[in-house]
C-alpha cells in the first residue's frame, strides 16, 4: 500500500469550477500589473505536524523564484494588512498527517473576502510533499499567467569526483539531487529525452560515444557508437530526432538521426570543426558551433542542413549555444577579454548582450522551461557550481553547493 502510494502520487482536483466573474477579474488583474501581489499563509493542520519541507514555504520559494509575484509570507490571515498592501489573492490550505501518509488541500482565495477561487486536493506520502507543493505552485502559476511554471522541472548535470564524472539530476531549486550514472569513467553533456530517459556522452568504451538510460533506473545503453568521436547530443521532442557531433567523416560534423538512433544523416560537410548542436524549440532549426571562419562562432541551419548562416560576429570564441523556450534568443558561452561569460543574442543576430557580470568562469547555459532563468556552471565562488540567473542579469542564485557540478541541462521533464 505504501509502495503504491509512493509510486503513484494522486492528484485530485477538488474544485475546478470557476465563476466567470472570477476569471474576468483575474485576467484584468494580470493585465494591469507586472507582478501579482500574493500572500501565502501557513496551512492549518487537521492532525500531525509536517517536520520538514513545509508546503507553504516551498510554494512561497517557488513564487519568489519566478519573480512575478509581490510575495507576502504572512503568519496568518490579516485582511487589514492584505488591504493595506493591495493583496487581493492569497494561498492557504490544510493538511492531515497520518504516519507517512498525508492528505492536503491547497486553495487560492480572495484575500479580502476569503472566497474560494480555486482548490486542489493531494493525497500521498510525506516524502512527496515537495512535489505536491511544486505541483500546486505550477497550477496557480498557470492560472495567473496562462503558462506552465518551472517549479516541477529538473536539471541534469555532471558532478565530478577526481577524474570520474557522472550524471546527476536535481529539482529546479537544487533540491532532491540523485546520481543517475554510476561509472568510473568520464560522462559529459547530459540532455533530457523525456520525463523517463536521457542521453549523454560517455567514455564507457574508452572513446566518446552517445548513451541513453532511464531517469528512474537502468543501465546505460549505447545510442550512437562508432570508432570515431560521437558527442554533444541534443534531442528534439517535436521531431523525435537527435542531433550530435561526430568525427566519422574525418573531422567533427553535425549529424542527425531518429529518436531510436536510426536513419543517420550528415548535416554539415565542412572541413572545419562543427559541434555543440542545439535545437530550436519548434524543432526545425539547429544552432551549432563552427570554426569555419577561423574562430568558433554560432551558426544556424535548418533540420535538413540547409540555409546555414552565421549568427555571432563578436568575440573570438563562442560555445554551448542554448535556444530559449520562446525561440527568440540564444544564450551561449563567449570569451571576451580572456574571460568566460554567458552572453545572449536574438536569433536574428541583434541585441548581443552579456548576461553574467560576476567573477569566475561562467559557461554552459541552459534555459528554464519558462525562459525566466538560465542555469550555468560557474567558478564564481572558486569551485565549480551551478547558478541560476535571469536573462536580464538579475536574480543570481546558487543551485548547487558541492563545488563539483557542471554542464547543466534544464528541462520541463
Amino acid at each position, binding site marked *: 500500500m505504501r509502495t503504491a502510494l509512493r509510486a503513484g502520487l494522486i492528484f485530485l482536483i477538488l474544485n475546478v469550477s470557476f465563476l466567470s466573474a472570477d476569471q474576468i477579474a483575474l485576467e484584468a488583474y494580470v493585465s494591469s500589473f507586472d507582478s501579482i501581489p500574493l500572500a501565502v499563509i501557513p496551512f492549518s493542520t487537521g492532525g500531525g505536524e509536517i517536520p520538514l519541507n513545509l508546503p507553504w514555504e516551498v510554494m512561497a520559494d517557488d513564487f519568489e523564484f519566478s519573480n512575478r509575484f509581490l510575495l507576502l509570507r504572512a503568519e496568518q490571515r490579516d485582511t487589514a494588512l492584505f488591504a493595506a498592501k493591495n493583496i487581493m489573492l492569497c494561498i492557504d490550505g490544510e493538511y492531515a498527517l497520518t504516519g507517512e501518509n498525508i492528505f492536503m488541500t491547497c486553495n487560492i482565495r480572495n484575500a479580502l473576502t476569503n472566497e474560494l477561487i480555486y482548490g486542489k486536493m493531494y493525497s500521498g506520502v510525506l516524502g512527496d510533499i515537495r512535489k505536491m507543493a511544486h505541483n500546486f505552485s505550477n497550477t496557480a502559476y498557470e492560472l495567473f499567467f496562462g503558462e506552465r511554471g518551472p517549479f516541477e522541472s529538473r536539471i541534469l548535470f555532471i558532478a565530478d569526483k577526481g577524474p570520474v564524472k557522472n550524471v546527476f539530476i536535481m529539482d529546479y531549486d537544487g533540491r532532491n539531487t540523485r546520481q543517475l550514472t554510476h561509472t568510473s569513467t568520464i560522462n559529459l553533456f547530459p540532455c533530457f529525452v523525456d520525463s523517463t530517459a536521457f542521453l549523454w556522452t560517455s567514455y564507457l568504451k574508452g572513446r566518446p560515444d552517445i548513451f541513453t538510460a532511464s531517469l528512474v533506473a537502468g543501465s546505460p545503453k549505447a545510442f550512437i557508437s562508432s570508432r570515431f568521436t560521437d558527442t554533444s547530443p541534443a534531442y528534439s521532442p517535436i521531431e523525435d530526432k537527435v542531433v550530435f557531433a561526430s568525427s566519422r567523416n574525418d573531422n567533427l560534423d553535425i549529424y542527425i538521426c531518429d529518436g531510436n538512433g536510426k536513419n543517420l544523416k550528415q548535416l554539415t560537410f565542412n572541413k572545419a570543426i562543427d559541434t555543440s548542436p542545439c535545437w*530550436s524549440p519548434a524543432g526545425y532549426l539547429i544552432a551549432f558551433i563552427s570554426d569555419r571562419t577561423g574562430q568558433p562562432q554560432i551558426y544556424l541551419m535548418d533540420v535538413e542542413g*540547409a540555409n546555414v548562416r552565421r549568427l555571432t560576429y563578436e568575440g573570438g570564441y563562442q560555445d554551448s549555444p542554448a535556444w530559449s523556450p520562446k525561440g527568440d534568443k540564444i544564450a551561449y558561452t563567449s570569451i571576451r577579454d580572456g574571460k568566460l561569460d554567458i552572453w545572449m543574442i536574438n536569433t536574428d543576430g541583434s541585441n548581443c548582450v552579456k548576461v553574467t557580470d560576476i567573477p569566475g568562469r561562467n559557461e554552459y547555459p541552459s534555459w528554464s522551461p519558462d525562459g525566466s532563468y538560465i542555469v550555468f556552471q560557474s567558478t564564481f565562488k572558486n569551485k565549480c557550481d551551478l547558478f541560476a540567473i535571469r536573462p536580464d542579469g538579475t536574480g543570481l542564485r546558487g543551485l548547487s553547493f558541492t563545488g563539483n557540478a557542471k554542464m547543466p541541462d534544464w528541462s520541463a521533464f
Partner: protein
Amino acid sequence: MRATTGSFLSFLLLVLFSAGCSHYKSLKQDLTVIKSEIDSMKVTLAELDERLSNQNELTRLIRADQQVRFKELKEDMDVVASNITESQIKLSKIDEKTQQLKKGWEEKTRVDSLHEAARIAEMESHYEVARSDYSSGRYAIALGGFQDIVKRFSGTGRAEQSTYWIGECLYAQKKYTEAEESFMDYIKHFPAGDKVCGALLKLGLVYDKKKRVDARDTVWEKLLQQCPGSEEALLAQARMKGK
C-alpha cells in the same frame, strides 16, 4: 654863329619837311589800303553775320528738332522703362512661379524621396520581422509576413527572397504540396536568384518526402549542374547516396 645855327635849323626843318611829306603820302596810301581792307572786312563781317544768322537759325532748328527728338526719346525711354518694369514684374512673377514650381518639385522630390525611403524602411522592417519570426519558429506568422512583402513590394530583392522563404515556412510546417509550388514558383521566376540552389535542394527534399524519387533525382541533378560545390549540392549528393 647865329646864322650858322639858323641855317642848320632851316636845313633841319627842310629835311624834316621833306621827310614828312614823304611819310604822309605813305600813310595816306596805307590808310587807303586799310580803308579798303576795312571795307572788305565789313563785307566779310556782313557775310559772317549772315552766315551766323543762318547758323543760329539752323542751330535753333536743330535744337527744336532735338527737343522734339529728346521728347520722343524720353517718351520712348519711358515706354522702355515701363516695358522694363513690366518685364521685371513679369520676370518676378515668373521667378515666383518658378520658385513655387521648384519648391513644389523639391517638395515632391523630397516627399517622393521620403515616401520611397519610408517604403524601403517599411519593407526592410517587414522583412526583418518576418525573418525574426522564422528564426523564432513562428512559421505561420512569418509566412504571412513574407507573403505580404511579395504582394506589396513586388519587383524588389526582398520580394524575391521572400518568395523563397515562403517555401521555407511551408516546408517547416510540413505543408509539402504548397512548399513544392512555392519553390517551383521561385525557380521559375528567379532562375538566377540567390536562393535558387536552396530552392532546388528543398524542392528535391519535398519530392523525397513525397517518395517521388525520380522527380527528386531530376531536380538534384539540375542542382548539381547549376550549383556545383555548393553546400546544397553536397547535401543533395549525400542524400542521393543515402547518407
